[in-house]
């Protein structure tokens, strides 16, 4: 029985391999694209098919990046500043926030026009008004659109949820009803009233979901609006066909006067990132985006200079990056440069604090000290991760580079003595501890690593391997003892990481470790309501360090991503927020001709 299945599988595999090879070859030959060297054209690769050009449906990062070339929101992330900082985009300056922290009043930038499009009178794009934002946000809330991005405003704005509920039963959604918390006070003034203070609200206005769309286009194109983007952005689509593997954008000829930032963060000046300061964007006239799901063709296209920048495919990592973390000789001869991006995340092994055994602080500290994080980093993250000292990753206010957590060091002796203080000398009397993780190769290896490290101090650990939904279910029902997991920022605010330890957020909430410390809870609920300020950052730093020393988790690393780019791309800075960054890039055509000739 099984034998039959096996033979079938083998031959299927073989034929699959054949198809793959054939397909790769086809893609390879069809990929011999002609490079346009007469003007500044950017060639990009996107890893997945995108879900069209409707901001409220662009829930994956690939779609979001494409959408953000055409559409804009009130805010964007400052292109150069780190930690990540919000900068007004379509908003004219930062909003006025009332003392109660509930009312946000925005001025809308004047003289912003939508792209020229047949949906407007005479085909001329009209001026953007505050009403357009009201409409776009109602569209996001409209249950008939079932947007996957609704969560960003759910239960945030006064009256919006009620309006949404009302439309669920209505035959046609009524956009004329007025909503208390969402109003255009005049042509250029927009006001939000929140249900309760939520200083992180501004981040949701930098997400693609809250981008502004003109109602004329939605009305004209209806369900085809997703294929006919009309925005205010620096680029507009020249050709977009959902079935094609190529998207072509051209610079928006009527783009407002927008300028390259004049200030950056440390080191930007030296790297030449401020040479374009104050110049009008965009610099690049045309963008060609190839949809290439397969890694190998993307890699080969990059090597031929047919794609200008690329996330390093995992399989090609060693071909691209030398052991000293610079690009390999092969690539550096071609002028390829590497850009390091710190992922806004943290990997950790969470203790379940509802388990009485793991409430033992000395035990937790001992286990944390037994992990050799250098080795963890070397074995599983190419040695490129940053060892986490607190939950807050670099790139976010609240990260303190100078701080070293004494319980994230590797110190077996100290670990053993703490274990003794915990009442389990050399692990005697300590029951076997369950370790839950998912059953992929890397997570299995990490589990083996964890078991080995714990065995050094006599702590016995038994790994359980789960599917991802199984693991989530176990965490939500508090059935784990230790589980391996990571958190990726929803928005670049330390609050998003510290809330993972806030008692009232315990499982099924985001606090899967069910850590519940009254002092931390109290301090966190205070700081989470503060608006961004240096005082708040100071409190974040302090709070993160205090809690990290209570070892609620065994901290792992903050991961890093590497991107490669060719030498002719200028003003390139790695970022986790890639929305609309192409408008700041430039191409050195002479250099490109010179380098391409060498390929």
């Amino acid at each position, binding site marked *: *029985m*099984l*034998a039959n*299945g*096996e033979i079938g*599988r083998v031959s299927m595999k073989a034929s699959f391999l054949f198809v793959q090879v054939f397909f790769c070859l086809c893609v390879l030959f069809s990929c011999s694209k002609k490079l346009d060297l007469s003007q500044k054209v950017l060639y990009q690769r996107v890893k997945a098919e995108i879900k069209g050009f409707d901001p409220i449906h662009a829930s994956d990062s690939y779609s979001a990046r494409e959408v953000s070339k055409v559409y804009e929101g009130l805010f964007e992330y400052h292109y150069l500043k780190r930690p990540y900082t919000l900068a007004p985009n379509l908003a004219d300056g930062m909003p006025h926030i009332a003392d109660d922290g509930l009312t946000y009043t925005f001025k809308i930038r004047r003289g912003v026009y939508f792209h020229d499009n047949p949906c407007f009178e005479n085909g001329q794009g009209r001026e953007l008004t505050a009403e357009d934002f009201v409409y776009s946000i109602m569209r996001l809330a409209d249950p008939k659109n079932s947007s996957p991005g609704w969560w960003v405003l759910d239960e945030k704005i006064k009256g919006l949820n009620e309006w949404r509920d009302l439309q669920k039963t209505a035959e046609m959604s009524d956009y004329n009803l007025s909503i208390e918390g969402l109003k255009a006070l005049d042509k250029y003034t927009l006001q939000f009233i929140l249900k309760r203070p939520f200083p992180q609200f501004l981040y949701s206005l930098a997400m693609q979901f809250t981008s502004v769309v003109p109602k004329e286009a939605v009305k004209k194109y209806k369900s085809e609006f997703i294929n006919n983007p009309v925005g205010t952005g620096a680029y507009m689509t020249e050709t977009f066909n959902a079935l094609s593997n190529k998207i072509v954008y051209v610079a928006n000829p009527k783009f407002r006067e927008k300028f390259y930032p004049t200030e950056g963060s440390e080191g930007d000046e030296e790297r030449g990132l401020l040479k374009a300061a104050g110049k009008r964007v965009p610099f690049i006239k045309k963008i060609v985006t190839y949809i290439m799901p397969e890694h190998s063709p993307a890699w080969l296209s990059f090597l031929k200079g047919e794609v200008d920048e690329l996330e390093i495919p*995992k*399989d090609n*990592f*060693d071909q691209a990056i030398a052991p000293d973390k610079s690009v390999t000789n092969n690539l550096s001869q071609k002028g390829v440069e590497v850009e390091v991006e710190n992922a806004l995340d943290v990997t950790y092994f969470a203790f379940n604090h509802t388990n009485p055994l793991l409430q033992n602080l000395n035990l937790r500290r001992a286990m944390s000290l037994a992990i050799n994080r250098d080795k963890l980093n*070397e*074995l599983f993250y190419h040695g490129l991760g940053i060892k986490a000292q607190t939950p807050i990753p670099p790139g976010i206010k609240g990260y303190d580079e100078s701080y070293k957590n004494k319980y994230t060091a590797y110190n077996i002796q100290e670990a053993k003595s703490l274990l003794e203080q915990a009442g389990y000398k050399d692990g005697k009397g300590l029951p076997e501890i369950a370790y839950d993780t998912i*059953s*992929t*190769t*890397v997570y*299995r*290896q990490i*589990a*083996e*690593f964890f*078991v*080995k490290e714990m065995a050094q101090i006599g702590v016995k650990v*038994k*790994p*359980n*391997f789960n*599917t991802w939904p199984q693991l989530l279910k176990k965490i939500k029902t508090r059935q784990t003892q230790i589980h391996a997991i990571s958190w990726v920022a929803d928005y670049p605010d330390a609050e998003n990481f510290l809330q993972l330890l806030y008692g009232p957020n315990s499982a099924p909430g985001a606090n899967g470790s069910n850590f519940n410390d009254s002092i931390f809870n109290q301090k966190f609920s205070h700081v989470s309501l503060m608006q961004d300020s240096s005082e708040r950052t100071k409190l974040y730093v302090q709070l993160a360090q205090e809690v990290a020393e209570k070892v609620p988790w065994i901290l792992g690393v903050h991961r890093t991503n590497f991107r490669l780019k060719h030498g002719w791309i200028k003003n390139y800075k790695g970022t986790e927020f890639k929305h609309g960054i192409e408008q700041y890039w430039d191409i050195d055509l002479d250099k490109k001709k010179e380098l391409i000739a060498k390929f």
Partner: protein
Amino acid sequence: MIEAIMKKESALNKMNEKTYLIERSKSLYQDAFERLLKDKAAVAAAVVVFFYSVIAILSSMGIIAADWNTEVGPSYSPPSASFWLGTDIFGRDVFTKIIHGTQVAMSVGLFTSLIAIPVGVILGAISGYYGGLVDELIVWFYTTISSIPSIMLIISISLIMGKGLVAVYVALGTTSWVSLCRLIRGEVMKHKNRDYVQAAQALGGSKLRQLFKHILPNVTHIVIINASLQFQIAIKSEVILSFLGIGVQSQPSWGTMIDDAKLELVGRGVWWQLVGATIAMFIIVLAFNILGDALRDALDPKLKGKN
């Protein structure tokens, strides 16, 4: 000179007589054994199987490869005099892991056969002998099981039972009895109308006696052939399951080693885990296949006298 020739001849005659005598009295199994011994490939295969079994037993007793989990050198050091097959991600000796993997593989083969063979034989015999409703029920049962893709069945069983070696035994054991059951059923149906069974019946032998005392011994060769093939299928399946991450946990298996190699091979060029585990598996699977074929040649009455 002539004397010498005569001596030789008489010796030859004696030998012939001896052979003749033995040939007349030897049983099916004796005969098969002798035929097997003549087949050099089969002998080699049997030696390999024996060798693997010894390794597996020694390893399970903790005499060899007990220290597979200790770090003996740096991560990913290539094969050398001190590490014959290099080291893995944690600096453990790959050769020792392969030895320990042999224990896992052989135990899976053994326990799977121990589950599958009794189930297959008993159900097949009952179904073939009694016929009627019982037969229909059993046929319905095994057709149902065989209509479910076995890999899906195995995955769901190991998900229900929780992962681990025992789940692998049960999952493979409960899915691999069908072909044996079918064969036995057919064979029993054929035998139950034979003269010797009818004679047993005429003498007043009960149905169970007819079945187990008379028919079953006459179909045992099928079981033996099947067992050796079953064994290698179980070994392969274990490797596949472990590769997919639903097999053996927290101890080395050839499957998890190949799974590791998936990440090591391309980026780092670490080929020794893959090669070591694959060759270890290849040899035993090949040996069982050769042995299975030779057993069939030796035991199947229909093939007798063909070589």
